[in-house]
């Protein structure tokens, strides 16, 4: 693609705060002129920091930001042809609506007549043209929001940055504003970069979604791509509801999970390759007669959600499947379930076991994850750097951090149908993953123990 079609290029941006916390880790991104791009992710994933780096309020520790090919990384915000709509609007309390909107134009020394024309036009676009004399403190949240948008677009920026602008509004107003913003984007033709943690908002408004988590970009794609073909379990779990299960790709077009073979439309995997399969609850077909389904189960809960019913079904071998259907199947009903082959989305497994960096302490101990772990007898000399493999289900997590050999914090919990797949950040900064049936919560501090026989030194 021709470089000149990209209005914003983010190149290998890393942002580290004092104290070592990495908020953005080697993030690269190209945004096309006129696009509506959404940065989507949970709190703390780095999306707001990335937006602020593009706006100029903060500088990256490493990396560059280009605007139409020009390096603007160190350019201060007042010299960038970029305007921001802030989450809490940041309207100037000592100025009325008109003066707020005219603020940027007055700084550019635009003529009075021109200012008046453009301010009134911007206010008309946001539907606030009767309010120019008003005190901004007397406006409602939605009205303040519109003034904030007018204040930004009146300067005709090349890029409009929006930092979760709708999160303070109630649901109905939020949905209305989403439509209005989308319409504004079409009418104005400028590039929008929108930050939100609400995946429905992202799916309904964006041309492109950038899914972020834990300082890294997880996936970039159109809303339909991201929804139908999530690149990894995090994206699958974050976008929409989903059932994510461990499985094996038996051979082309046949995937095995829940100990059964299912026809699917994926191919190109090695025989018996371990995979994750994603099934959206709305793609599970319920059958009144259990014999009609590909597998059976008993409904454990049925909740009315307005448009559909949301049900949980327990299978005989211990899997819990989430299902959405227009028909209610009350708790206790035995049902059959099936999924069309094209609705089974197969993702390659990221890894099969934890590969951990370790240092040999003595013949029966290695130092890893910030602590000394006991191992089986080995013959490597003290001080050797090795890689250690530990299967996901061989890591024990303990309630009291002091009871474990090492300590860590739970960062992400993924339900895999019959167990939990947990991301743990250890106290020394390393990440490991754990399979467990215990129920934990995000941000729990835990102790980590591994039996000596489960620690395999692999090189």
């Amino acid at each position, binding site marked *: 693609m021709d470089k000149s079609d990209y209005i914003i290029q983010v190149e290998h941006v890393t942002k580290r705060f004092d104290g070592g916390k990495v908020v953005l880790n080697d993030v690269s991104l190209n945004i096309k002129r006129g696009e509506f791009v959404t940065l989507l992710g949970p709190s703390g994933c780095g999306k707001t920091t990335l937006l602020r780096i593009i*706006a*100029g*309020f903060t500088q990256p520790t490493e990396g560059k930001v280009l605007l139409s090919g020009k390096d603007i990384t160190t350019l*201060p*915000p*007042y010299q960038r042809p*970029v*305007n*921001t709509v*802030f989450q*809490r609007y*940041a*309207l*100037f*309390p*000592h100025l009325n609506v008109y003066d707020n909107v005219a*603020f*940027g134009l007055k*700084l*550019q020394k635009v003529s009075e007549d021109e200012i008046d024309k453009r301010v009134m036009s911007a206010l008309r676009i946001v539907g606030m043209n009767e309010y120019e004399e008003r005190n901004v403190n007397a406006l409602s949240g939605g009205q303040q929001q519109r003034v904030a948008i007018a*204040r*930004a677009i009146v*300067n005709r920026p090349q890029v409009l940055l929006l930092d979760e602008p709708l999160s303070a509004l109630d649901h109905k107003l939020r949905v209305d504003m989403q439509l209005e913003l989308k319409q504004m984007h079409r009418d104005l033709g400028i590039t929008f970069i929108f930050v939100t943690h609400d995946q429905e908002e992202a799916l309904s408004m964006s041309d492109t979604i950038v899914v972020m988590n834990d300082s890294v970009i997880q996936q970039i794609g159109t809303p339909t791509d991201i929804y139908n073909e999530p690149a990894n379990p995090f994206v699958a779990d974050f976008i929409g509801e989903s059932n994510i299960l461990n499985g094996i790709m038996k051979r082309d077009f046949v995937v095995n999970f829940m100990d059964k073979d299912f026809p699917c439309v994926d191919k190109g995997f090695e025989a018996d390759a371990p995979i994750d399969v994603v099934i959206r609850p709305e793609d599970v077909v319920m059958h009144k007669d259990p014999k009609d389904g590909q597998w059976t189960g008993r409904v454990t809960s049925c909740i009315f959600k307005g448009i559909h019913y949301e049900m949980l079904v327990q299978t005989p071998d211990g899997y819990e499947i989430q299902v959405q259907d227009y028909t209610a199947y009350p708790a206790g009903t035995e049902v059959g379930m099936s999924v069309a082959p094209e609705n089974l989305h197969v993702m390659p497994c990221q890894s099969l076991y934890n590969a951990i960096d370790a240092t040999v302490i003595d013949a029966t101990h290695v130092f890893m994850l910030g602590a000394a772990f006991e191992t089986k007898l080995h013959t490597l000399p003290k001080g050797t750097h090795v890689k250690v493999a530990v299967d996901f289900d061989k890591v024990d997590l303990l309630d009291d951090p002091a009871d474990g050999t090492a300590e860590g914090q739970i960062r992400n919990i993924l339900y895999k149908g019959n167990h939990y797949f947990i991301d743990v950040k250890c106290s020394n900064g390393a990440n490991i993953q754990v399979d467990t049936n215990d129920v934990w919560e995000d941000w729990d501090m835990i102790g980590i123990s591994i039996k000596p026989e489960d620690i395999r030194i692999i090189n």
Partner: protein
Amino acid sequence: MVSKILANRANWVWPYAIVLLVFVVMPLVMIVYYSFQDAEGQWSLHNFHKFFLSTDSLNTLIYSIGIAMITTILCILLGYPAAYFMSKKEYGLPKVMAALFILPMWINVLLRTLATVALFDFAHLPLGEGALIFGMVYNFLPFMVYPIYNTMLKMDGSLIEAAQDLGASPRKVFTEVFFPLSMPGVYSGIVMVFMPTISTFALAELLTMNNVKLFGTLIQENINAGLLGYGAALSLIVLILIGLTSFFDSEE
């Protein structure tokens, strides 16, 4: 009987009402009463005539207002930058500095003023108008710094960013956003400095060896000499002045 009185909550207000009556309302009434009395004990505007016809008294009043204005302006010129540097993290001044500003307040004002006199003696500097203004500014500076400092601390950082985002250079950010929004603090400070300065007299006596006469001194002299009527009239004039300047604050 007593317990019945105590049981009614409304009655609990009486002790405070009595204190207010005796120590606040009565004195005010007395000042107003005496100010309209002439030497023979008759109702008249004699005292006010005397004041407005006496060039000395009028000069003293205008002089006192002048000193108060100079003090206030000096306090703003010194206090605003001090508050600014203390409130901005990037200048690295520890929070304890703000506390240090208020420490002198814990020492009695007369002690401090006498110490200032000693300091001037030690430095071979003459007492007089200069010493008076120095002493006034030194005494009232914290009252100016604190409101401005608090207003600056509480200022919404995103407003600064919004101004930058809309194209304001650091200088413009200051003049268009920061300075206007710090004004409420400055008004507070003015009110806390200007009003008391008009009526101080102890500082004037000590720091000028009684050479400079402020309005407060004038009042004190007349009361001591037994001219209660005149003294009361002068007090009433100051009270009205203070009342007028307090409108300056709420006008914002």
